[in-house]
Structure formats: structure tokens, C-alpha cells
């Protein structure tokens, strides 16, 4: 095959995980991604396979099967479903742009119901903890240059954020920490993960024991005696050694994962982790940061908070924003069977929610906007194929540390595909017409 054009695009932002590495070199040949250098293996899989398994036209369900339809018909069907719903849920938003979240929030204001993002099943409890305690944080750049103690707690970045350790923490080269030997790395986890294998110290904790261990660490940091010999599976002397290590460092950081938010204690685990770091700042400089999963889950929180005052789980059914996680969160409203329609954008809740929740989704009309087929598209009434942010279309996103970044397309999308923003705006236009008509 004749090569018509081939170029290497530098400094491309990876739109997979919350680390959003910005050093990819993407080779594009004849309008297709050929290769990626500098990225992790997940990044390579994402960019090279972006065009595998795609719907190229909108689909609507007839007689139990999805059939191709026109864009205009899919927009009209979607608007009708949402405008007629009493309590729809608008869910997803973490793997798309800030602009799409903004359009979704406007749509939610028009149709009422609940708008929630995937924070609800990852770091929702983290945000609840931050509401209670506050958070001592910084940019990843600051951590890279200064941290001499890095603790990963309930997080396995070698698998979830493959370049995080290399770019931002123990293995990175900073201005004041030049190499690995200038930093101490500790992993606290229930399993000796691949990340633990990189650490200087691994502390194995009993499942669901994080709250206990964190409380014991707070006591040790304050100089109180630990009365038990073993706490959450960890010997007391080991806890005291870790407390000493934390107090004696110059600049420490805890990166915590969903090992804290998805286990017993949930937001209380976060409360105590944030409190521990607050205590440590009386003795030294210490930070804490959640390992946000999707590339723009932090942006979904930011945009939701700009517009409604709340970062996720926002109920607009009364005409004003209400926020009551545990009640207005996606898993709860769906498990109760409250919602009578759903709009899913850039997410696959059937692959992420407990079975009982997915079962309710399968009973109600679901509209899905996603570049690829998924478990959720299988149960959908309307499916919009869309362009991929960071590959075929641009948009603003927020990195896990809250740094705003603008992504740019590296290739053109297949002809006829619309972006998430365009689809949402077109649905909104139709919803407005239907609502004004009413």
C-alpha cells in the first residue's frame, strides 16, 4: 500500500487514566494511528485499537434488536424519552470533555432527575471525606520535585496508572530528588501487588482493616502508646516505625486508591487518612492525593461543582440542585428502581454497577453515547456512536491533581460521526422544543 502521509505528533495527551501523561509520540499514517511511543501498554492499546469494534451509525431498538437509523431520528427519539421521563438519570461524564459535561448539566436542568458521574463508584467517599476534613494537596509536579517519602495505600498504579510511579513519584527525576535512592517508597495493601514489588517497604493489611490501621498510625504520630500487639494484621512496632518514617521525612505524600473507598468504612477511611495528614503537617510537610481513575473524572467533578455547587450525585428534579450521596447517587436511585429513563455518556454502567442496578437499567429506556459497543449498548434503546476525545476530537480535561489540560485531535473521525458535545446540544435543542410545546 502506498503511504500517502506519515507524521509523528509529539506531546500528545493520553486520555485513559487520571494521570493523563502528556508525552506521547503518536505516529499517524494515512489518517490512522499507527504507533505510540512513550506511553504505557494500556495507552498503546487504546490509541492503536481506537477504531476496532465501532458502530458508525446511530441505532435504535425495534422488536428487541438494535437497527441503524438516521442521526435526526435518534436525536428525536432521545429527546422524547428524556422529555417524557419523570425522573431520568444522566450518568457517566468521566471519559469525555469538560464541554460535554457542561452540555449534559444544561440538559439535566431541562429534564430534571439526577445527574451523576463515575465518581459515585470510585472516589465518591473521598469527596465526602474532603467535605468533612479538607485536603492538603499540591500538583504532581511539586511532588515529583520534592517528595522524599511516597506511600501508595490501597492503590496498585503499576496496573491502574502504569506510568504514575515513573512520571510523578518514586521513579521520577525531580529538581531536588534526582534518583530513586533519594526517595523512600512504601506500599500498604491487602495483597503484595506488582507496585509493592517496587517499594522499599510493603505493609500487608487485613481486608477491611484500613480504618483501624490509619487510627493506630494517628496515635503513633501523636506519640500515644499502641495497646494491641497486632492491629489490622500489622505488628505495632511496624506501625510505630512507619509513623517515625512519616514524621522524619522532609516532604511526604500518600497516594490512595479505591482500596480505601470501596471497603468497609468508606468515607470514614478517608476522614481518618485526611486527618492523619493534617496531624503530620504539625511535624513536617505532608500531602495526600486520590488516585483518580478515568482521565477526566476530576473534570466531571469540577464542572458539576461550577454549575450546581456539588461535584456529583446532583438531583435537579425539584428545579434546584440537591446533593445527598447515599440517596441521590446513581447506584442508590437505580437500586430503588426510581429512575424511568437513563442517558449514559462515555461510560459503561452495566460493566461497573452491581447486578441489581444493571437489572433496573435493562428495564427502562437507556440512551447511550459512546464510541464503542459495550455491555450497556446491548441494553440500550438508542445508541449514538461518537468521536473519541483526545484522538478524534479535542476538549478540556482535568488531570487527577486538578491541573487543567486541553486535548487535541490527532486524526479525523470516521465521516458522519458527531462529538459528545454536538449530540448533547442537539438533544437539548429538541428537548427545549418539546418542553416549550408542553
Amino acid at each position, binding site marked *: 500500500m502506498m503511504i500517502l502521509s506519515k507524521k509523528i505528533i509529539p506531546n500528545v495527551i493520553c486520555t485513559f*487514566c487520571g494521570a493523563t501523561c502528556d508525552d506521547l509520540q503518536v505516529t499517524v499514517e494515512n489518517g490512522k494511528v499507527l504507533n505510540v511511543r512513550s506511553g504505557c501498554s494500556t495507552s498503546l492499546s487504546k490509541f492503536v485499537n481506537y477504531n476496532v469494534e465501532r458502530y458508525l451509525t446511530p441505532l435504535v431498538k425495534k422488536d428487541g434488536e438494535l437497527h441503524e437509523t438516521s442521526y435526526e431520528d435518534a436525536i428525536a427519539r432521545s429527546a422524547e424519552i428524556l422529555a417524557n421521563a419523570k425522573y431520568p438519570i444522566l450518568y457517566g461524564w468521566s471519559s469525555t470533555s469538560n464541554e460535554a459535561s457542561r452540555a449534559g448539566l444544561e440538559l439535566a436542568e431541562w429534564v430534571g432527575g439526577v445527574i451523576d458521574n463515575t465518581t459515585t463508584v470510585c472516589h465518591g467517599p473521598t469527596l465526602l471525606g474532603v467535605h468533612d476534613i479538607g485536603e492538603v494537596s499540591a500538583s504532581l509536579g511539586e511532588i515529583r520535585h520534592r517528595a522524599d517519602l511516597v506511600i501508595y495505600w490501597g492503590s496498585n498504579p503499576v496496573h491502574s496508572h502504569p506510568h504514575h510511579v515513573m512520571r510523578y513519584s518514586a521513579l521520577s527525576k525531580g529538581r531536588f530528588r534526582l534518583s530513586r535512592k533519594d526517595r523512600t517508597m512504601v506500599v500498604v495493601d491487602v*495483597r*503484595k501487588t506488582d507496585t509493592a514489588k517496587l517499594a522499599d517497604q510493603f505493609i500487608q493489611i487485613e481486608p477491611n482493616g484500613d480504618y483501624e490501621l490509619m487510627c493506630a498510625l494517628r496515635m503513633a504520630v501523636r506519640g500515644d502508646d499502641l495497646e494491641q500487639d497486632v492491629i489490622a494484621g500489622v505488628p505495632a512496632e511496624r506501625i510505630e516505625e512507619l509513623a517515625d518514617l512519616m514524621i522524619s521525612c522532609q516532604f511526604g505524600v500518600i497516594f490512595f486508591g*479505591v482500596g480505601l473507598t470501596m471497603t468497609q468504612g468508606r468515607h470514614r477511611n478517608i476522614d481518618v487518612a485526611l486527618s492523619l495528614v493534617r496531624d503530620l503537617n504539625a511535624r513536617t510537610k505532608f500531602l495526600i492525593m486520590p488516585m483518580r481513575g478515568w482521565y477526566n473524572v476530576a473534570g466531571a467533578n469540577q464542572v458539576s461543582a461550577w454549575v450546581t455547587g456539588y461535584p456529583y450525585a446532583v438531583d435537579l428534579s425539584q428545579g434546584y440542585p440537591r446533593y445527598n450521596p447515599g440517596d441521590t447517587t446513581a447506584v442508590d436511585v437505580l437500586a430503588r428502581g426510581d429512575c424511568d429513563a437513563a442517558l449514559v455518556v462515555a461510560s459503561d454502567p*452495566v*460493566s*461497573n454497577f452491581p447486578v*441489581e442496578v444493571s437489572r433496573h437499567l435493562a428495564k427502562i429506556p437507556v440512551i447511550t453515547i459512546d464510541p464503542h459497543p459495550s455491555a450497556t449498548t446491548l441494553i440500550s434503546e438508542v445508541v449514538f456512536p461518537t468521536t473519541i476525545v483526545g484522538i478524534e476530537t479535542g476538549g478540556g480535561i482535568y488531570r487527577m491533581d486538578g491541573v487543567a489540560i486541553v486535548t487535541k485531535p490527532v486524526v479525523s473521525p470516521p465521516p458522519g460521526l458527531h462529538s459528545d458535545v454536538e449530540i448533547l446540544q442537539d438533544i437539548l435543542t429538541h428537548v427545549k422544543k418539546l418542553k416549550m410545546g408542553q
Partner: protein
Amino acid sequence: MKVTLLSGRSLGQAKGKVTGKFTEEYLRNVAVCELDPEDLKSLGIALGQNVKVTTKTGSVVVRAAVASQAARRGVVFMPYGPWVNMVIPSETYGTGMPSLKGIEAEVTAAPNEKLLDLRSLVGHMARG
């Protein structure tokens, strides 16, 4: 065999999902339960045979594998995805977050039971 079930991200799951959720790669990496080699032995099954994972919520048949990292007796790992969701309870205890880790479960040998592919699993889920 009584176990503690952890679900989570794995590199294979992440790569499988971006490659395509209807691909063999996704099925191979996600419809799986990773066990400690000793636990696998005590179940009396060979690698690659199926096991049934049961919790108070339900059960699901997946392929058995030796823990690729962090083997620990009595602790099993399943990657995030529709298969593990079949056994995840929906209670959030007022936080919005279901328990995705640290769940009481039972694993039994199921060499003759069929592992459902994604399309069949979603159909099974929807029918209740």
C-alpha cells in the same frame, strides 16, 4: 471454600477494555477468578477450568487462574467488569458506594458449568 473477594483494575482488564469489550482478549482477562495456588489445589481443579463464585447476591461462573500477583490463601481477585458485578451487592450504606472489595464469598469447582460470553451474560442479567 470460603474466601474474601476483592475486585479491581488489572493491566489485562484495562488493555482488554480499550481493545474491545467483545474481543477474546477482554473475555480472557475479565471473566476470571485469580486464586492462591494452594487454594486452587484444594479445590481439585486444573488451571483454566471453571469455578463458580457465589455471594449473598448471586453467583457467576468464571475461569480459574493462579494469582498473577500477590497470591494469598483465602483471598481471591476478580477484575472489574460484568462478571464480578453478578456477585457484587448493591447496598451502599448511605454513601453511594457499593462494596467492591472485601466481600464474603464462596468458590467451588465448576468444571462442567458454562462460562457465558458478554452478550449471553448481559441477556442472563437482564432476564433476572
